[in-house]
């Protein structure tokens, strides 16, 4: 039999051992931070304290490299109830209801263990949303993998998709939209960004802030195990070959427990029992308790926390305070209850068969005090852990400007239909049916339009009402790599456009900024300029950032990923019967372009996939045209609300040629069309050039005559008819038809991914 007294004494002694600078270095704390630590603390920390400092001061928890730049984001408009700084952002959607949403990355864990990494990414983002009192109603994911030929890519795709499906399907929240792209730049470092959207009543929103001294701290959900220890620190370091061996730091997800936790928390939130609540995400019990203490007090002045770690439900015996505090076991919540509410809370968690224990009390000392086996194993002030964490002004270099793209250097293709076929079946553009058919897109019964139609944004009805939310995720990393400022603007503008394209008023965004090592001035330059570009667009479009996540150190063996600031957009639809998708085109409809911007082949899909260009030679991206974006967005929303369109699609990768082809495939009807100026200039550029602020519309004659287009120049490019797609060049009598049948295009477009995954 184990002598538990002896073991306890050994643990306490180990925990209380005073640490020095070399111990700190092993925890990722550099010299400057060590000096800061011992100055603030006035002594050397013990092992538990050092562990807590290391995770709280990690990039992942402290945003120490990005914080000063993130402050450039506009975070307010007339709809914003809660901006960044809480578990998720909150917007007013009318009728006393709120949408609560956030996007978060699980890049490093998903590369090491794709199934569990992706699954727990979904679990974590769901908790961020229901912690605030919202019932999750939609999931979205933005995935980026290495080049298809890379030996690891196929198994990573399979693992990540199965992980997302395995978690989301079981927990019963529909996965309604997403994007999946491939690029050699992600060979050693894939991106798995998950977004959750929830729905709450405005008078029942819960925050991490506001806990007052003298109240019970309540732990609920799964038991704490030894999994995921130092996950936050891992997510703050570069990768090197062989890091798959870090697998024990990846957490294991249990969607069944998450489902119970959602129901139990929402049931408890119906009572008046909770004063403050925080999920245990990265850095687990440490960050949840520190964040609640730091933002506690009636005026946010901060409070203290005292916890008895022996009371924490534990999965195995002999766990140390260090392990308990740093564990990232999933499906756990920490809350501060109002006095006397313990029994109410306990009864609800008993009903759902979940562990629930009072593990401590809030105090007025401003200190984090932890006890184990009757001894104090940690006693440190809270403020330096959070507010006073390092905040670096990292040196950065202005990203170089690219020379203009010179189309004349390259031979013009003879048959544009060949180009269309190639672009529509390339890995980025090919149908991702193989992915989204593995996600339950319909559970909860409110999915009006999902990935099924290949549309610009998913439409999810607000349960029991005639309103809906439109949700999208966007990023064109090629534009950001080419010019982070313009590319950053373009990312936000595309989200604005995608929401407008279904008839939704764009309200706000969440962001997920994925970059390389911020300690390298060149990488830092992309971070700074992309944020500035995004911030500029958010400001002009009145489309603020309400939540987000920064994922840095996405590098393997010194090579950074392409700069990938992903945006998740949310818009409001007042009448769900007045929406548009890209699938409604009918035979006989006109194909109309609403644009007023110039087509552009720099950094385009054509340049990448047809010409096979890379890096510098791709040239710069199109500049965002934010004024036009607003005007055209408002006009398109008006047309949709008037019911005078059959289908709408935004123009993005592959220009009007690919956008029209997507509408034809979705509608099951052919289309023939020309460029904007047949016979003039480069018709290749007119057809495949990418242009901001632009939409294609399918409209019948009755609808067309009802358009009030004053101040706009919608251009009729062609007509939906037949069962082929025809791109027309030249003028009569020398018109050339470039034709491909819908069937052939569909086979190529739908066929790539299943063939690839089958290894064919």
């Amino acid at each position, binding site marked *: 039999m184990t002598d538990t007294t002896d073991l306890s004494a050994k643990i306490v002694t180990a925990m209380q051992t005073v640490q020095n600078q070399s111990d700190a270095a092993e925890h990722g704390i550099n010299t400057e931070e060590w000096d800061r630590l011992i100055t603030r603390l006035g002594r050397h920390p013990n092992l538990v304290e050092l562990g807590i400092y290391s995770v709280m001061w990690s990039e992942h928890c402290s945003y120490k490299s990005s914080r000063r730049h993130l402050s450039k984001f506009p975070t307010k408009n007339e709809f914003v109830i809660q901006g960044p700084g809480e578990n998720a952002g909150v917007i007013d959607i009318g009728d006393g209801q709120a949408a609560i949403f956030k996007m978060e990355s699980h890049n490093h864990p998903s590369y090491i263990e794709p199934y569990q990494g992706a699954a727990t990414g979904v679990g974590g983002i769901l908790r961020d949303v229901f912690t605030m009192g919202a019932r999750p109603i939609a999931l979205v994911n933005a995935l980026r993998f290495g080049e298809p030929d890379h030996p690891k890519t196929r198994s990573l795709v399979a693992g990540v998709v199965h992980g997302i499906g395995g978690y989301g399907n079981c927990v019963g929240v529909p996965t309604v939209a997403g994007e999946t792209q491939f690029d050699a730049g992600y060979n050693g470092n894939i991106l798995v960004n998950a977004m959750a959207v929830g729905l709450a009543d405005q008078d029942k929103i819960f925050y991490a802030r506001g806990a007052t001294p003298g109240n019970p701290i309540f732990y609920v959900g799964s038991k704490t195990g030894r999994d995921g220890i130092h996950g936050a620190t891992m997510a703050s370091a570069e990768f090197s070959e062989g890091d798959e061996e870090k697998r024990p730091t990846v957490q294991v997800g249990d969607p*069944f427990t998450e489902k119970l936790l959602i129901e139990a928390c929402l049931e408890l939130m119906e009572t008046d029992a909770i004063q403050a609540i925080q999920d245990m995400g990265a850095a687990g019990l440490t960050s949840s308790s520190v964040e609640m203490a730091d933002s506690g007090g009636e005026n946010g002045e901060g409070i203290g926390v005292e916890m008895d770690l022996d009371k924490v439900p534990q999965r195995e015996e002999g766990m140390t305070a260090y392990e308990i505090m740093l564990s990232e076991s999933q499906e756990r919540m920490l809350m501060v209850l109002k006095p006397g509410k313990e029994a109410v809370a306990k009864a609800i968690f008993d009903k759902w068969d979940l562990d629930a224990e009072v593990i401590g009390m809030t105090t007025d000392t401003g200190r984090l005090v932890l006890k184990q086996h009757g001894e104090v194993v940690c006693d440190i002030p809270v403020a330096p852990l959070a507010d006073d964490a390092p905040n670096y002004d990292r040196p950065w270099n202005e990203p170089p400007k690219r020379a203009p793209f010179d189309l004349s250097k390259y031979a013009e293709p003879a048959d544009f239909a060949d180009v269309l076929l190639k672009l529509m079946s390339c890995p980025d553009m090919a149908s991702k049916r193989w992915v989204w058919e593995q996600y339950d897109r319909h*559970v909860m019964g409110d999915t009006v339009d999902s990935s099924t139609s290949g549309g610009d944004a998913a439409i999810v009805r607000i349960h029991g009402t005639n309103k809906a939310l439109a949700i999208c995720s966007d990023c064109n990393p090629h534009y950001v790599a080419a010019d982070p400022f313009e590319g950053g603007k373009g990312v936000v503008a595309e989200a604005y456009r995608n929401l407008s394209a279904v008839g939704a008023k764009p309200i706000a965004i969440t962001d997920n900024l994925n970059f390389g090592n911020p300690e390298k001035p060149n990488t830092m330059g992309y971070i700074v300029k992309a944020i500035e570009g995004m911030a500029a667009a958010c400001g002009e479009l009145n489309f603020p950032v309400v939540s987000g996540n920064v994922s840095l150190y996405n590098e393997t063996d010194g090579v950074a990923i392409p700069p990938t600031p992903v945006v998740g957009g949310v818009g409001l639809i007042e009448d769900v019967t007045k929406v548009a998708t890209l699938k409604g085109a009918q035979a006989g409809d006109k194909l109309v372009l609403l644009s007023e911007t110039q087509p552009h082949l720099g950094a385009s899909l054509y340049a990448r996939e047809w010409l096979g260009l890379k890096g510098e030679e791709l040239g710069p991206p199109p500049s965002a045209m934010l004024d036009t974006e607003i005007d055209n967005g408002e006009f398109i929303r008006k047309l949709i609300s008037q019911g005078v369109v059959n289908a709408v699609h935004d123009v993005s990768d592959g220009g009007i040629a690919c956008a029209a082809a997507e509408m034809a495939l979705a509608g099951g009807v052919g289309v023939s069309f020309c460029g904007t100026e047949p016979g003039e200039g480069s018709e290749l550029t007119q057809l495949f050039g990418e242009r901001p602020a632009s939409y294609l519309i399918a409209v019948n004659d009755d609808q067309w005559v009802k358009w009030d287009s004053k101040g706009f120049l919608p251009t009729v490019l062609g007509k939906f008819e037949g069962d082929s797609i025809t791109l027309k060049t030249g003028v009569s009598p020398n018109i050339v038809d470039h034709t491909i049948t819908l069937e052939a295009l569909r086979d190529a477009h739908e066929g790539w991914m299943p063939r690839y995954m089958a290894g064919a």
Partner: protein
Amino acid sequence: MKAGVIIFPGSNCDRDAITALKDITGQDPVQIWHKTTEWPKGLDFVVVPGGFSYGDYLRCGAMAGNSPIIPELKAFANSGGHILGICNGFQILTETGLLPGALLRNAGLNFVCRNERLIVSPNSSAFTSEYQSGSEIIVPVAHHDGNFFADDATLDMLEGDGRVAFRYADNPNGSARDIAGILSENRRVLGMMPHPERAIGGHEGGSDGRAMFTGVMNALATA
């Protein structure tokens, strides 16, 4: 019609079923928690909803099939009550023995969520009374373990007795003889993998599922 919906831990289509029943009957169905052993009085129709009861960490439906409510559900079936088991609910009904056969992992091994074309088989149940025999309807599926399996004798018996309710036009999961849903001997218990409660109109699932609920409602009203 007084309807009820059983809720297990991990059920996640309970709300979908409640919404459909409320929309179609105009009344809130009774929510029956799985730990209850007291069956609500006066029920005519019970839905065993989809989801991942107990996480389906054991064989799908196996844990729920042994839940405290199950003896009451069986008694309800024996008394001639109408029961609709959808998806996980179908799996649970096979585990309880109320319906024969078993649901195996999909032949393609992946979870599959899409709108499927179903053919209404000739049968004489309330569930299909408002569909034309042989007609085609579209109902969404969303499952990982929907591959219906039974021995040949059982399959012959089901077909011979007119107990196949629906077949897939494009079998998505490898089900024996394309079977998507089967009936009990008295035609009052239907288990099916597709989700009629997600096809009641106003969303991506279409509206072909409504007639299943109105069929039961009207049959009970005239009974």
